[in-house]
Structure formats: structure tokens, C-alpha cells
């Protein structure tokens, strides 16, 4: 089976990363922003897996790293959704521009 070259995979992960960043900066809905963050994290996961497979096929550290990142992402999503629910209770909105009181 023909292997997919490494550069293709890196291209995918880079695209994913910047799509995530774009979403994070432009969306005002907090749920969408949370999803964008997940995209960024997954782009990192792809990088880890790809480098592990192409550079050190006999090792497994990269795979474990991505497992950790997935776990952390789940925890982070739980925390973020809790915050969003609380904000919604206080502000009756999940628009990030409405939550602007933590300033000088």
C-alpha cells in the first residue's frame, strides 16, 4: 500500500489549526469558539501521531501524548460548558462580547 507522504498530513493539520484559529477569533458564540479550540487541539493530535509514525515507528510516545490531549480536551470542554452555562444564567446570552466586565 502506498503510504501517504508526511507533508500531506502536516498540510491537513496546519489547515485544521488555522481554521480553528479563525473560528476562535471571528465567532462570537461561545459554543462555536469552544468547538474551534477543539479543532486546534486535534490538529496537534494529528501532528503527534504523524511524527510518531513517520519518524520513530518503533516507539509509542506520540500516541500516548495524543491520548492525554484527548482526555484533557474532554475535561476542558466540561469546564468550559459549565462556565458558559453560568454566564448564560447571568447574562441571558452566550455572546462573548456581552461578557466584558472583567476589565480595568
Amino acid at each position: 500500500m502506498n503510504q501517504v507522504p508526511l507533508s500531506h498530513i502536516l498540510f491537513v493539520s496546519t489547515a485544521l489549526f488555522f481554521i480553528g484559529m479563525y473560528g476562535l477569533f471571528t465567532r462570537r458564540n461561545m459554543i462555536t469558539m469552544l468547538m474551534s479550540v477543539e479543532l486546534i487541539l486535534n490538529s496537534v493530535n494529528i501532528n503527534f501521531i504523524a511524527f510518531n509514525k513517520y519518524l520513530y515507528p518503533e516507539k509509542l510516545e506520540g500516541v500516548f501524548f495524543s491520548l492525554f490531549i484527548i482526555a484533557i480536551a474532554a475535561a476542558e470542554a466540561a469546564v468550559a460548558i459549565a462556565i458558559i452555562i453560568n454566564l448564560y444564567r447571568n447574562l441571558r446570552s452566550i455572546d462573548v462580547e456581552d461578557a466584558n466586565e472583567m476589565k480595568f
Partner: protein
Amino acid sequence: MPNYAYIALIPLLPLAAFVVLGLCGRKYQGRWSGGVGTGAVLISAGLSLWTAYQYFGACPADAACLPVTPLKVTWLTFSPGLSIDMSIILDPISVMMIVVVSFVSLMVHIFSLGYMKGESRFGTYYAFLGLFTFSMLGLVLSGNIFEIYIFWELVGCSSFLLIGYYFDRPPAVAAAKKAFIVTRFADLGFLVGILILSFHAETLDFHTLILRLTHPSPQLASITTASFLGISMLSWGLVLVFIGGAGKSALFPLHIWLPDAMEGPTPVSALIHAATMVVAGVYLVARLYPVYAFSDPKVLQLVLYVGALSALLAAIIACTQTDIKRVLAYSTMSQIGYMMFALGALGYTASMFHLFTHAFFKALLFLCAGVIIHRVHSNEMKDMGGLRKRLPLTHGCFLIACLAIAGIPPFSGFFSKEEILLAAYHANKFVYAVGLFTSGLTAFYMFRLYFSVFWRREGVGDHHREAAFTMKAPLVILAAGAVFAGFVPFSRWVTYDGRPEEPHAVGAFAIAPVALALLGMLLAGFLYRKESNRPAKAAAAFGALYTFAYHKFYIDEVYSFVTKKIIFNFIGRPAAWIDRNIVDGFMDLLAAVTAWMSARIKGFQSGKVQDYALYFFAGIAALAVLFIYIYT
């Protein structure tokens, strides 16, 4: 040599009383606090008498009483050559002093049981008395010059606390502050003196210090060759130590705190400001006496003249005051002047003897004044008069004390004053004349007080009890002391070089002082025995001198002028200006710069999550660029 280790208990018992009463006396004010304090001092006094018995009993019959160091603990070690010890020294004067201090303290403790009854801060009072007794006993037993300085400050502190005991009365607070500041100012001299002496002698220990500074040694060479303003460092050190002593002993011109210190409770005046603490200055000079006697004679001349001047001025002022305690305060100052000029006139034994006898009769006078004030509720002599029927026992004791201080034989004051005048006669005829005149004045003002308080008016007895037993017993015991203390063979035990001297036989020399004292008594009787206009006429005859003396020679006014007008204006105000504008200004500048900066950059903290995310990624991008640049 007997074992003296128990001596540490003598000062430590009053300290224990202080700690116990200070920690839990407040809860049981007035119930057992007086008993605890008195009990501790009673044991101390018993141990002191036992020590004296043992120590003087162990002296060889015809040679010096040797100093003993029963306890020595190294407290701080700085370097191999420099350490501070805590030690106890026993020599004739310290043994004499522990007896005086613990005995008078015991009398005052007992007297206060009656006098201070019903005070709301009874336990606190006894705690302070315990602290004072501890510090004073520690002071007299100190074996090195640094230790004596620690206790010196402790007695100053407890004196401050006791003068300000009635802290709700503004004059008492002012007096406490004044006493503290004036003695503190003098203590600065003492501290510098200690530093000079111990730096050159390379030791703090009294015994070694005296040995090195009175015999040819490298240390003596160093201290006499070094000089400042043309005066050798040895003289400077001794003069500065003397200034410290003069402040504590209320000698001219540092005496201004003592009359005001009478704002404290009367038993406190008896203990601290008459019998014990104020003689600490005399004791200090006596402690270093071999060095004083060995060094430049000009230093002793200074001691002599300051003492004589204080004795004379205080006696003159005492003749004009109307507050019974102030008369006694000036009389104390005058008697301390006597002790000091006796030291200046090489009358070491005479000075210590007078210190010893003075403690008894002056404490007695103050305690009698306490009884009188307790009954009359006033300090002013004009509110008294004719009290001899109402207070017969006090009358008798007061008369004994007056006769003792006036130097009438065979009361104790006669013997000690006699020796002082004899020493002065051999040393300096002028000072002898001053001393003689002052002894006449002493008799005059004491009997002025006596006649004004106890005679003057027709007295009537009343059915009130004179005073509580606890107040009467100390009077009787001290009166016995005032009568018999003169018969103690003092010169046999306490001498400058430690060799016993034969007591001087009382002879023709005694005629002049006794005659003058009798003259003073007769004059006082003539003026004050009956109510008349004679005192007013006499005052008018003296004119300006009377006004001057009545206003205490305006010394307080001179001090206020110097401090308020000169020091405040020319030192205090510029210092305040520098503090407000330069020191504070620098701090204000720092604060202003910080505030300005933060106002400029606070916009970054916008409260918008996406802004923060942007800074975050910008930071990561910048770091990425940086690392790429560094690693390639």
C-alpha cells in the same frame, strides 16, 4: 569561701512576682497580688541580710574584703575576644546596696498594702514594683559594664511606668515622659562612655577594666594617648559615664525630671525617687571609683563641683516650695549632691555611708508624707497644719527623720554628713563652706516642712484611726533604721581600697555643722511654728532671690526655651521639611510614575476574551520566530 549561688534568687524572686502578677494579676486585682509581691520581696530581703551577714563575716579582720563572683554565665559570644557575660559580683558596696534596696523595697511593699488599697490597678502596681526591684537588684549586682547598662535602662523603664501609674492624669503622663526623655538623653552619654572605656580597655568586666586602667598596661597607654579636643579618651569616657550617672541621680543641670516625678504614687517616690534608683548614679561612679581616682584630677573636680552646686541649688529651691513632695524631692537632690561631692572629695566611704543612711530617713520621710497625704487628700502644705494630734505616730517618725537629715547627733544623718564634711574639708575649703551652708539650709527647710505640717495651727485629735497597721509598721521599722543606721561600723567594711579604716572620732569638728543645723531649726521654728506674717516678710526681704528660687531658678523655662524655640525651630523644622519633601517626595514620585504608566497600558486589559486570545497567539508567534532565529 561560703557558697553564694543562692544570690541569683535575690533579684529573680521579684522578677518572678512581676511575671506572675503581670500575666494574671489583672484577673485577681487586689486579692492576692499584694501578698505575692510582698512575699517575694520578703524572701529577697531575708536572703540579702543573710548574704551581708555571711559576706562581712567572712572578711578577714584586718585586710580587704575580697570581691567574689559567685555566678558567671556567658550570654553572647561575638568573637573569641569579645563576649558579654552575665555575672554577679559581691563586694562591700554591692552587698550594702542589696540590703538597702531589698529592705526599703520590702517596707514600701508593705506600706503599699495599706496605701494603695482599693486602687483599681492594684495588681499592676505590684507587678511594676516587682519589676523595679528586680532591675535595681540586678543593677547593683552587675559584674560588667554592659550588664549594668541593661539594668540601668530597666530601672529607667520601670520608673517611667510607675511615674505614669495614674495615666489618666495629664501631669503624671507629662512627668513620666519628661523623666524618660531627660534620663534617656543622659544615658546616651553613658553609652558612649561605656563604648570608649571598653573599646580601649578591651574588656567589659569591671574587675579587669579597673585593673587595666589603673596599672601600667598597653590598654592604659592606648586610652591616655588617644585624645579628642585635647582631652584624653580616658577623661572623656569617665566624664560621659558621669553624665549618665548625673541624669539618673538628678544632678544639676539634668535634675528637672525629679520634682515632676513626684506625680507617681507616694510609696513609689519613697522607693525609686528617694532611696534607690536615684542613687544609681552615685553607685555607678563608686563602682568605677579606682579609675576616677587614678585618672586626671579634673574629672573628680567636675564631680565635686557638680555635686556641690546641685546640693546648694536644690536646698535653696526646697526652702521655697509649698508642695510637700516637691520639698522632699529637692531635698533628695540636695542629699545626692552631697554624696556626689563626697566622691569628688575622695570621701568614698563617707559617700557610701551617706547613701546608706539617707535611704532610711528619706524613705521614712516619703512614707510619712504618704500617710499625711492619705489623710489630708492634698499635697499642699497650706492644707495641712496641726496634724500632731491627729497623726501622733507619723509625727514622731517624721521628727526622727527630720533630725536625722538635719544631722543632729546621735541620729544617723549626723555621722554620715560629718564624714562627708570632713572629706570636703581636706579636699577643698570652698566646697566645704558650701556643704556647711547647705547643711544649715537642710535643717531649715526640713523643719519648715515639719512645723508647717504638724504645728502652725491648733491641732485637734479626732476619732479616726491614724492609719492601717500595714502603713504604721514600715514607719516604725524605718524610724529605727534612721536612728541606729549611724552606728553601723561602716568604715570598717566599705572603703575605697578595701582596707578597714578606724571610724573618725566625733570631736570638735562636729560643732560647726551641728550649730548651723540648730540655727536652721530655730529659724524655721521662729517663722513657721505659729501662723503669722513672718514668712511673708522674710520672703519679701529676700526679694528677687526668693522669686528666683520659687520658680526653681527658671531652669525648666530655660529648657523649654532651648527645646521649643531653638531645637524645634532650627533642627526639628528642617528635619521635618526634609522628611516631608525629600524622603516622602521620592516615594510619592515612585508612586506617581507607576500610576502614570499603568494608566497608559491599562487599555490592554479590555475584558474581551478574544483580545486576550489574540495577545496569546501573538506571543506564541513571536516566540516561535525567536526560537527559529536562534536555532538556525
